[in-house]
């Protein structure tokens, strides 16, 4: 059989400007939310206006999350950027188990050495759905104008090995550094890697 090579030149690709149909995209207004933190206090996105905000989806039982907490990477990022006046919000959308309750989440966060500004519960999954949070971890950066500046993976190496952190591109750091410097984020959307967010069963 003769090989068909008629496809050469048939790629229209770059010529077509695709309109994205997905829920949320970089540049969109970050969906508003008001949730409770582990102390029972209300935390709303609207109140953070004028500040850069990070949303970090967490599940301490997930090996990909363990990679970043066990190595101290996540805590270092939290410390580094909260020191630069970034509001870092760790979100638990876990629908069941201790991570779906204030005390359980607080205890596990303390044990993990979490240094976020806020640790909040999203047990009904409304915030997760509004943002399209898929995995733990899944990171979002919101700029001072309240727009999504980054949506995606914490870094570039999809693995559960802490040793890979050193060689990975820290997408969330790159996004935060750009936003804090008033620059455009180069990679504003990446595929998040991790365990699925444990939403409540439908």
């Amino acid at each position, binding site marked *: *059989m003769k*090989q068909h090579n008629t496809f050469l030149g048939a*790629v229209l690709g770059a010529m077509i400007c695709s309109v994205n149909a997905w829920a949320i995209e970089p540049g969109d207004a970050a969906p508003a939310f008001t949730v409770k933190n582990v102390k029972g206090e209300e935390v709303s996105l609207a109140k953070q206006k004028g500040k850069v905000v990070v949303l970090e989806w967490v599940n301490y039982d997930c090996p990909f999350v363990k990679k970043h907490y066990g190595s101290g990477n996540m805590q270092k990022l939290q410390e580094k950027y909260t020191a630069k006046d970034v509001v870092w919000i760790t979100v638990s959308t876990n629908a069941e188990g201790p991570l779906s309750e204030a005390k359980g989440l607080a205890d596990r966060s303390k044990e993990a050495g979490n240094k976020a500004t806020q640790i909040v519960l999203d047990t009904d999954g409304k915030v997760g759905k509004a943002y399209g949070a898929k995995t733990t971890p899944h990171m979002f950066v919101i700029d001072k104008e309240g727009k999504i500046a980054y949506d995606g993976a914490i870094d570039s190496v999809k693995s559960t090995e802490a040793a890979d952190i050193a060689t990975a591109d820290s997408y969330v750091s790159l996004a935060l550094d750009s936003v804090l410097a008033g620059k455009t984020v180069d990679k504003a959307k990446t595929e998040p890697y991790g365990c*699925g967010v444990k939403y409540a069963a439908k």
Partner: protein
Amino acid sequence: MKFSILMAAGLPLVSQVMAAGVKDGHGEAELLAQSATYQTGKPVTVGIRLKVEDGWHAYWTNPGEGGMAMSAKWTLPEGWKAGALQAPVPKRFMTGELPGFGYEGEAVYLVDLTPPAGAGSGASTAECKVKLSWLTCDEKACVPGDVELAVKLAPGDGAPGKDAAALTAAAKKIPQPLQGAALKVEEADKALKLTITAPAGVDLDGAQAFPATEQVVDAADPLKFARSADGWTATAKKSEYATGAPTLLDIVLAGGKLERPLVVSWQAAKK
């Protein structure tokens, strides 16, 4: 028993390949070798059999969203080379709300280990070690598995060993390129038009199709190829993580009227 027979025959004592499987997390892995012996310069096919506990699944080369493909890092004697890890045809599943590709039950991956040519009579027993990392998930959790396995291969005639039949069976689940088949990818609005031209007699009706390349086709989109004027055509939803125009795509086809699984590959013309 076998050892004593070998010794009686005056052959060197060779530790017959492998211990049983090694468990970690919710999986168990084991090495299989086509032969307990090798000839210089000739590849020996080795299988990695991964057994996944009921209720859990492991992931394919393209894991879909979330999940993680198995990695195999070989440590081989000098001059030996490991070929690409060949994964069997996966199945589709959902993990919570994330679409994925992978395996339930058992999957046997194949890899060719090639000894250097010209070692000749100086060849010695080769210990081939591999570090495997996989991920298993169910609806509630994900648990990694990390094990190290080894297989010893002695110089010899490379005759089929006790695992040869299992590896022959496993090879039937590994997609192979088909002579005369081609894949074409065209971007059309938000979708990708995929066209396969295949030799007459290849019927893709009812075959399952899987994107083996990550971040090109939306993992949730069930690909179906239908007969068209151009051959076989499917319209695929573009992955939301695709950056720019696609440059590469491999599609694995299996089942339906296909005698054996196929892989068709496309690469964008260089600009």
